[in-house]
């Protein structure tokens, strides 16, 4: 049992710190590198950028069904919005997480009611299954899929699956909890160093194409 305890302490103590530091520093580095590349080689991008058109584009794509392509793919649209909303709110607003923040820094905020948290968890897991099926079944998705896409999907799904088992306390709570915390840490570390970095870049790629379309092309991009 002792081994288990010290493993738990390690995973929920120093490793969390490591994960957060890597996540934050890595993210800053990725964004810094993007901008230093722009400054070095593509300065003209600044002549294209427009706050108004960036926002116009982001708004049309951050609202479900507000762009033509979202409307063309209703299942994917519903899935991806549910998935991403879950992905953002769970780490931040889950009661168990906020308690941990509170323990560490003495700060706390609004939390999701437990019942809702379970529902969101199950929804996100379902969304991951839909993503998986799309990849296996739809020809145009299958063709562009690489093994890494399954790995990324697994990385994103893991905290939800393990978190759910831990929460339900079916069996071996400690085991699932350790797995959960590890998988959460993997997500954090993976964001700056895999294509999950789309979380960091999405706002810039959208802003750029929105500006290019609005400012130069005088055309809509949604």
């Amino acid at each position, binding site marked *: 049992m002792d081994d288990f305890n010290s493993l738990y302490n390690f995973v929920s103590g120093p490793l969390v710190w490591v994960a957060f530091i890597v996540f934050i520093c890595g993210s800053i580095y990725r964004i810094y590198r*993007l*901008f230093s*590349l*722009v400054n*070095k*080689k*593509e300065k*003209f*991008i600044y*002549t*294209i950028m427009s706050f108004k058109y960036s926002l116009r*584009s982001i708004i049309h*794509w951050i609202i479900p069904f507000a*762009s*033509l*392509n*979202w409307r*063309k*793919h209703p299942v*994917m649209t519903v899935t*991806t919005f549910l998935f991403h909303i879950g992905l953002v709110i769970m780490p931040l607003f889950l009661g168990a997480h906020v308690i941990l923040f509170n323990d560490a820094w003495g700060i706390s905020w609004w939390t999701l009611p437990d019942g809702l948290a379970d529902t969101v968890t199950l929804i996100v897991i379902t969304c991951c299954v839909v993503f998986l099926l*799309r990849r296996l079944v*739809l*020809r*145009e*998705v*299958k*063709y*562009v*899929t*690489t093994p890494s*896409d399954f790995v*990324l999907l697994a990385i994103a799904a893991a905290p939800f699956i393990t978190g759910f088992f831990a929460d339900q306390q079916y069996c071996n709570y400690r085991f699932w909890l350790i797995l959960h915390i590890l998988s959460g840490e993997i997500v954090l570390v993976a964001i700056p160093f895999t*294509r999950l*970095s*789309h979380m960091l*870049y*999405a706002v*810039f*790629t*959208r802003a*750029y*194409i*929105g500006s290019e*379309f609005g400012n*130069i*092309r*005088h*055309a*809509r*991009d*949604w």
Partner: protein
Amino acid sequence: MVLPVIKVEDKIIDDGLDKGMEKLTQDRIENVIDQVMSGETGARLKAYVETCVHCGLCSDACHAYLSRDRDPKFSPAGKVKRTMSVILKKGGKVTPAFIRDASEIASTECNACKRCAMYCPFGIDPAYIMLVVRRICHLCGVTPLYIQDTAHSHAVTQNQMWVKEDEWIDTLQWQEEDAREEMPNLRIPLDKEGADFMYSVIGPEPKFLAGLIYQAAYIFNVAGLNWTMPSFPGWDNSDMAMYTGDNEIMGRNKRFHFEAAQRLKVKRIVMGECGHAFRSVYDMGNRWLSWAMPPVPMVHAIEFYYELLTTGKIKVKEKYKKSVTLHDPCNVVRGRGLHEKARYVINELCEDFREMHPNREHNYCCNAGGGVINCGPPFKNKRVANNRVKAKQCADTGAEILITPCHNCHSGMEDIVLGYKLDMHVKFISDIMYEVMEKPEIG
């Protein structure tokens, strides 16, 4: 309506690609890729390839994918997978045969029409990636023969069609003479300093379509405009070098064009009905020369016709009777938002205008643009087969006349009309304007 099936050759033979491949060495490939990846490209390419989550949502944007029974290798992300992704995965260590195929994919299966950029949730621009691939292939010396020939012509003569200076002047004088039978005091003023605008055309106009210069001159003379054309290189606004990835020649060409206007001290440039030339002058060539916007104000023919009609300089005698539909050229619609002006002009000129669907920014490209038609006969069947959706879209309008205010679209749509046996004729806006405008009596 059942459209005929167009057969595509399994393997297309093209000397530019095949001979280029034979001469290509491994060293050269690696040097070129290193030069382009570490020297020329930057944040955009990085962000695009590192962000794409392979979701396939861009597929429905591409006419080639839709036309080829949704074969995923023709989807935007599919084409990136077959080209750039391999280059990145292998760290540039790819074979000459790969470069040959990549060149064929990037130059003949993608029109750089940017429709897919409107469909990707991240706003990733596969067209840009395809242009980077073309750049690599160009530097490797593996470009389809026909389009490479036009790029050579640009380099040597500053026009696309090997038109010599005396041929150019002769052609203009010949058109002037012909048009004088219709309007005895008509002029095509050459090198008139300080004119209100310089009219620029594409190389193929003097070569094959001189009648268009006649029509334009007639329209400008009736409207009583103060205009000019240069007698010297710089008159051609077209740019195939932009599409082969020969950016150096693209820049040099645009310099000639802008400098012609500056030398003539005109207030602005008016361009004929061409999409890719517009892209080169307005978006790509100028930027290569470090101008965020063109250094000389310029308008596309659609904007100019719009002015002529709204100011009453050209009046319509009797509207065109036949039913017409409009193909929105990507380079001036997705490239400059001229769709509403085009509709205004067409509704002023024609009685019975019918939309095709989708339209405006969401139009399907003609599949001729982006230099694809300029890759010539070897790729013609593939080009027509890859745009079945366009044929369907046109046929569904039931219109007799298909208007395309773009030269490449015009030729490409003619091939589609013939290939799919559509009952339509393809026309420029100026063809119709010339036909329906109020004309002065011959004295």
